């Protein structure tokens, strides 16, 4: 009996460690990526709104050439902005169009984040379940050895 239980225990533990935990880690990583995207777009939106508010027509910036070496750059006309819409495409927008697009994009990202959150929650629940099973198996060893706790 004990050996059986030991085997089961081992199987459960292995399951948790090999399948569930890495799954959880991966899901969290994916969700973080989407979070980053969301942040990028919200920053962009804020910047555009700031530009609009101050009616900035031309702009002077410092462009990073790589390894933190900057060069001065001038943007004569800020009316046209090219936004990355995915798959390597950049679309020329005016400010208002850009803002509209960004809000749409943010919606989509929010939905993705919710999905990932649900997935993560379910994985965590599974891990908890298996751990509970292991705990029960261990805490009731003397009572009924052949209880046949099958999960």
């Amino acid at each position, binding site marked *: 009996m004990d050996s059986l239980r030991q085997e089961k225990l081992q199987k459960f533990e292995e399951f948790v460690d090999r399948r569930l935990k890495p799954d959880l880690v991966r899901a969290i990583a994916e969700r973080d990526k989407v979070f980053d995207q969301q942040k*990028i*777009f919200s*920053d*962009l939106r804020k*910047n555009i709104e700031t530009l609009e508010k101050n009616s900035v027509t031309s*702009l002077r*910036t*410092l*462009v990073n*050439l*790589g*390894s*933190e*070496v*900057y*060069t*001065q*750059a*001038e*943007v*004569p*006309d*800020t009316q*046209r*902005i*090219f*936004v*990355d819409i995915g798959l390597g495409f*950049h679309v020329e927008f005016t400010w208002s169009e*850009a803002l509209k697009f960004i809000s749409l994009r943010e919606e989509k990202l929010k939905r993705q984040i919710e999905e990932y959150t649900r997935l993560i929650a379910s994985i965590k629940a599974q891990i908890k379940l298996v751990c509970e099973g292991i705990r029960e198996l261990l805490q009731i060893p003397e009572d009924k050895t052949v209880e046949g706790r099958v999960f």
Partner: protein
Amino acid sequence: MGKPEVKGTVTSLSSMFPPEEVQKAAKMVEGKLSEKQNEMNQLKEFIADNASLINLVQKLPDELHHDIMVPFGKAAFFPGRLIHTNEFLVLLGESYYADRTAKQTVEILKRRGKSLVSKVDALKAGIQDLKAEASFFDSTASEVAEDLVEIREYEEDNSTERASQSGPVELESPSVAEADNKVSSSEDDEYARLMSRLEELEKEELAAEDDGENDEDEDANANAAETETETDGDEDELTEAAFHRKKDEGYSSLDHGQRSLESQPRKQLQQSKGKDPMNEEMPTKYNHQGLTNQLACTGLTAEPVTKGEISHSRIIHQDTKMLNPPVNASVRSEKARSKQNVHDSSRNEKPVQTPKSEFDSSKAFTGSIIEHTENLEKKLPEQKTTSSQSSDSKPSKPVSRFKMQRK
């Protein structure tokens, strides 16, 4: 390779180097190796980027303005142009920037490239070392897997002693011969050193024996008998044995780690030394060596010695001991082995607290041995059994002494 001579001991390699441990060590080394490879790749990327940046900075001043797409955050661009094409703002680190011309920027970048290249070289050297270590572990693992048996034979005449390894696979002997050959040259120097140390230690030992023996009745007696027998005859052999150990260690003439695995017996020798200065050195040297392998090795051998008086905390001492010139260890160990066990136990337990602390001063060795055993317990449980076996086989053979420690 073995010359069938006076005395010999046969040890199965698998008992000395449990296969799982060897594999674990091999994996560890592989992990470190891959880490270093990654770092190196990254550095190489940096170097490439740096080179392309130098090109760009050199080309920009050719035009007054460059039409570009100016990035605005990560996901948007503005069409614009680069102006002041000869002025660059370079980050010097710690939020310090410098306005430089193109030429000056190129110089800065070149200097950066040089430092990167030197880092890559350093990494390469480290990778070489790790590779050698890995190959050593692999060969050991294969030897162990083949049930190789190590046979140590000691001749009465102090000619070169060779530890021969024979077993089902005779192929191993050539490799061992090679190892021996490699090591022999370095050992000559050590041999001379050993001899001189041996004499010094003998004197100390004699003096110490008188004092120290009293307290550690049982241990002392047992050990004393051993030491006496040891000192009586075969100092030469002992040194020879020490040589052997060194030879063994010098398989790949590389890291301590290799040695530690190979020369467990040697470690014991070292441990047993118990010279006061040695002991004192050890704590200081502790910092130098962070080789876990050594710990493991030393720990193993020390077990039988300490007789359960081991304190885990002494591991550090072990490290220092192991690191300390092997010569000292080998020379001393022969003599004070038994004593050291006694001393070590006393020392380890509590140099401050135990009444045996008096031994510490007289016989420095004690501390180290015990520590090893601790390590042994932790790292190589198998060693315990072997060591206990070895302790039984004290008797007349000088060889057995080494074996004891090895085990």
